[in-house]
C-alpha cells in the first residue's frame, strides 16, 4: 500500500454527498464486490439448503439476520478500493480471518439492530476497536452525521421493500391476463409454494440492496474522518515530508496509522470473537400442515379456482347518490326573484329547498362566470395576438381605392365624361403628356372602380399590368399593355408616341374600358 495513492478524492462533503461517494465507490468496484458478495451468498444459501424446503420463511429471517456477516465482504472490497486497489475473491479468502475476527458476535447479536449499523461497521471491522474504545470512537464519529446515517438505514429498508414490491408487481404483470392468479392474495393463504416464492424474492431483494447500504455507510465514515482528521491533508503533508527528507518519519500514533490500513495487520492480539457458522435455526417449523389447515386450504382453493364461485368483477364507477327530486334550480331561481308567489313545494320543506336553490344559484353564477371568463379571456387573447397568430387580419386601414396610383389621380370624379375625346383635345393642344396620362389613369380608374381591381398606392405600372391580366379579357388586356408601355416610354424617357399610335389607343379605348364614353 503506497501512502500517496487514494481511490477517491477526499474532500469535506456534506453527509448526503458522502453517501453518494460510497455509492460511487460501489459503482466503480462493483465487479469485485459482486464476486465476494456472490460467494458469501452462495455459502449462506448452501448452509440453509436443508431447511429451505421445509421452512423457507425462517430461512429468509435467518438470511436477513445474518446480513452483518455478509456486509463484511462488501466493506472489505470497498476499504481496499479506498486506496485504489481492486480486491479479488482470492484476497478476500486470504484475509478471511482478519475480516471476521473483530466484533462479529457483537454485530450479529446486540448491535444487529443498531440504526447506524453500516456507519459504525468500519469502526470495529477496520479499526478493530471494541468495548469502551469502540463506544467512545463511535460517539465521536457519529456526532454529526447520525441523522444521515439513520436516513440511510431507513433507505435500506425502503429500497428493499421497493425492490420486493417491484418484483412481485413484475411477476404479477407477466401473468397472462386470463390466468386469474392473484399474487397478492397469497399473503392471506401462505401456502408453502407461496412461502418459497416469497423467500426467493425476499432473498433476491436483500441481496440486491444490501451493498448499497454498506457502501453508503462507508461513505459517511470516510467523510466524517476527512472532516475530523483531515486525511487528505495528512496525505499531502506526508508527500511533502517524504520529499523533504529521506528519513521516513513514522512518528504518528499507532492508532491513526492503523486506521489507515484496512484490513488491520494481523498482529498477535488475542482478541477472540465468536465466529464460525452463523446460528442455525434451532426449531424448524412444525412438520407438515395440520389437517384442519389443509381442509381450510382446499376450501379456499375451490373457492378460488372453480368458476362457479369466481365471478367477481371489480367495477369502478364514479357514482353520485341520486337526488331523488330534480334540484330545480331554475324554479328556485324564479322563486327567489318573484317573491315566491307560487310556492312550488309543500311548505314544509320549502325553506330547505330555498336554501338549496340558493346554493345551486351561487354555483351556477360561479360556473357561468368561470366559463364566461375563460371564454372572454380566450377571445381577448385571440384578438390581442391576431397579428402574430397569422389570422386573417383586416387590413389597416381597410382597403379603399387609392386616390392616386403612380402619381395619377384616378378618382372617378376627376375624369371627364368622354375620355378619348378629352385626350384627343389635349393632344392637339400640344399637351401629349397630359393626354396620355389621362388615357392611362382613366383606364386604371375603370379597372379599380368598375372591375374591383385592388391596387395599393405602392403599385408600379408593372404591378398594375399584372393585376389587370386577371381582371380583363385578353383583348382589352393587350390594349392595356400597349397603353402601359406607351405611357412608360413617355413618362420615363420623354419619348412621345406618334400621332398614329396615339390615335390607335384612343380608338381602342372605349371598347376596352368602355363604361363612360
Amino acid at each position, binding site marked *: 500500500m503506497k501512502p500517496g495513492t487514494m481511490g477517491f478524492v477526499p474532500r469535506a462533503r456534506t453527509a448526503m454527498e458522502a453517501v453518494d461517494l460510497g455509492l460511487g465507490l460501489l459503482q466503480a468496484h462493483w465487479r469485485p464486490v459482486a464476486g465476494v458478495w456472490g460467494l458469501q451468498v452462495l455459502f449462506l444459501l448452501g448452509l440453509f439448503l436443508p431447511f429451505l424446503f421445509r421452512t423457507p420463511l425462517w430461512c429468509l429471517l435467518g438470511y436477513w439476520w445474518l446480513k452483518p456477516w455478509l456486509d463484511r465482504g462488501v466493506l472489505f472490497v470497498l476499504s481496499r478500493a479506498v486506496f485504489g486497489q481492486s480486491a479479488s475473491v482470492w484476497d478476500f479468502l486470504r484475509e478471511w480471518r482478519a475480516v471476521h475476527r473483530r466484533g462479529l458476535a457483537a454485530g450479529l447479536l446486540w448491535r444487529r439492530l443498531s440504526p447506524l449499523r453500516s456507519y459504525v461497521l468500519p469502526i470495529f471491522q477496520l479499526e478493530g476497536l471494541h468495548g469502551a474504545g469502540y463506544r467512545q470512537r463511535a460517539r465521536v464519529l457519529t456526532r454529526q452525521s447520525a441523522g444521515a446515517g439513520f436516513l440511510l438505514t431507513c433507505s435500506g429498508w425502503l429500497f428493499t421493500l421497493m425492490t420486493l414490491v417491484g418484483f412481485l408487481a413484475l411477476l404479477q404483470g407477466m401473468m397472462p391476463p386470463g390466468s386469474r392468479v392473484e399474487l397478492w392474495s397469497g399473503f392471506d393463504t401462505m401456502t408453502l409454494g407461496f412461502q418459497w416464492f416469497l423467500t426467493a424474492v425476499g432473498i433476491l431483494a436483500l441481496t440486491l440492496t444490501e451493498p448499497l447500504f454498506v457502501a453508503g455507510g462507508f461513505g459517511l465514515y470516510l467523510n466524517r474522518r476527512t472532516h475530523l482528521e483531515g486525511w487528505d491533508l495528512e496525505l499531502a503533508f506526508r508527500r511533502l515530508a517524504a520529499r523533504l527528507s529521506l528519513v521516513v518519519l513514522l512518528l504518528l500514533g499507532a492508532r491513526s496509522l492503523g486506521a489507515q490500513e484496512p484490513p488491520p495487520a494481523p498482529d498477535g492480539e488475542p482478541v477472540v470473537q465468536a465466529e464460525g457458522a452463523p446460528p442455525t435455526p434451532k426449531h424448524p417449523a412444525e412438520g407438515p400442515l395440520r389437517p384442519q389447515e389443509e381442509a381450510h386450504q382446499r376450501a379456499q382453493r375451490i373457492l378460488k379456482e372453480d368458476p362457479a364461485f369466481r365471478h367477481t*368483477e371489480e367495477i369502478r*364507477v364514479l357514482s353520485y347518490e341520486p337526488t331523488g327530486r330534480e334540484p330545480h334550480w331554475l324554479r328556485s331561481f324564479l322563486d327567489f326573484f318573484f317573491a315566491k308567489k307560487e310556492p312550488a313545494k309543500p311548505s314544509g320543506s320549502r325553506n330547505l329547498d330555498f336554501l338549496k336553490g340558493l346554493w345551486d344559484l351561487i354555483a*351556477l353564477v360561479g360556473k357561468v362566470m368561470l366559463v364566461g371568463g*375563460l371564454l372572454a379571456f380566450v377571445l381577448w*387573447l385571440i384578438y390581442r395576438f391576431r397579428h*402574430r397568430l*397569422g*389570422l386573417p387580419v383586416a387590413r389597416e386601414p381597410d382597403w379603399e381605392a387609392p386616390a392616386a396610383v403612380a402619381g395619377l389621380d384616378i378618382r372617378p370624379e376627376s375624369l371627364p365624361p368622354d375620355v378619348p375625346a378629352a385626350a384627343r383635345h389635349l393632344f392637339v393642344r400640344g399637351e401629349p403628356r397630359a393626354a396620355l396620362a389621362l388615357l392611362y389613369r382613366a383606364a386604371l380608374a375603370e379597372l379599380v372602380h368598375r372591375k374591383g381591381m385592388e391596387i395599393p398606392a405602392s403599385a408600379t405600372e408593372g404591378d398594375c399590368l399584372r393585376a389587370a391580366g386577371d381582371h380583363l379579357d385578353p383583348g382589352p388586356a393587350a390594349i392595356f399593355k400597349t397603353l402601359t408601355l406607351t405611357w412608360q416610354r413617355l413618362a420615363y424617357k420623354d419619348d412621345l408616341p406618334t400621332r398614329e399610335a396615339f390615335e390607335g389607343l384612343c380608338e381602342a379605348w372605349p371598347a376596352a374600358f368602355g363604361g363612360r364614353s
Partner: protein
Amino acid sequence: MRQQLFEQQHRQAWEDLQGWLEERPTLNPEDVPPAYRQLCHHLAVARERHYSPALVERLQQLALRLHQRIYGERGEGLLGALRFLWQDLPRQVRGEWRLVAVSGLLFFGTWIGAFLLVRADPNLVHLMLSPEEAARYVQMYDPKTPVAGAMGATRDVMMFGWYILNNVGIDFQIFASGLLAGIGPLFFLPFNGLHGGAVMAHLTNQGLTATFYGFISGHSSFELIGGVLSGAGGLRMGLSLMHPGRRSRVAALREGARKGARLLFGAVVLTFVAACFEGFWSGNALVPWKAKVAVGLAFWTLLALWLLLAGRRGR
C-alpha cells in the same frame, strides 16, 4: 501574486456579482456579462495558482450560480404557447403525419371495426364488455336516468374535475408508456378504440341514440383527437428509441421526447377543452340532442381544418 492581494483586488467585483444574484443590484444589468467573464478568469487563475481550496470553491460556486442565471432558458410565455397552438402544433402534426395516421388508425380503426362488428351482430358486444359493464352503460344513457347536466351546476364542476383528472392522466400515461419501445400506445389505443366502438354500437343497438350521441358529440372531437395526438407523441418517443438513426440512442431519444412532448402538450390542451365541454355542455339537458350533434360535427370540422390548414402561411 499572493492570495491576499488577489482577494483584496477583486473582492469588490465578486461581492457586486453576489449582490446581483441576491437581487440587491449594485451592478447595471449590462455590466453583468463582462463581470461574469472576469470572474471566470479569476476562477481559472485561482485554480492555476492553487490558491486555498476555500477560495477556489467560493469562486466556483459563485460562477456556477451565475452560469445558471445567465444561461437560464427564457420562456416564451403566453405568446409562445399561443403561437405554438396556432402554428407549430398543426405544422408538427402535418410533419409527423405518418405517426399521427398510425395512431389515428390504431384508435379510430379499431373503433370503427368494433362498431361495425357489434352493429352486425349485437351479441359480439360480450367479447369486449362484460354484461355488467354493458348494463351499466345502458343504464347510464337511459333517458330516464338523469344526465349530469340536469343535476345542477355543482355536479358539473365535479364532473369537470373528474374528467380532467382521469382523461388528461390517461393522455399522460399513453405518452409515457411510449418509452417502452412504443408498446404503450400500441396497446392502449386499440384497447380504448375497441371499447369505445363496442359501447357506441351497443347503445345504438339499444336505441339510445338521442342520449348517447347527444352526450358525447360535443366533446368527442377534442377528446379523441387528443388521445390520438398523445399516442402519436408516445410513438414518436418509442420510435426514436428503436430507430435512433445516425445518432446515439440517448440523443435520439432526447430529441424524440422533445418532439413527442410537444404533441402531448397539444393533446393536453385538447383534452382540457374536452373536459370543459363534457362537464358544462354535454350533459346539459336544455339543449336538444340534434343541436348538440350539429355542434359536435362543427367542432370536428373546425379541428380538422385547424390541423390541416393552420400555420400553413409562412411567417
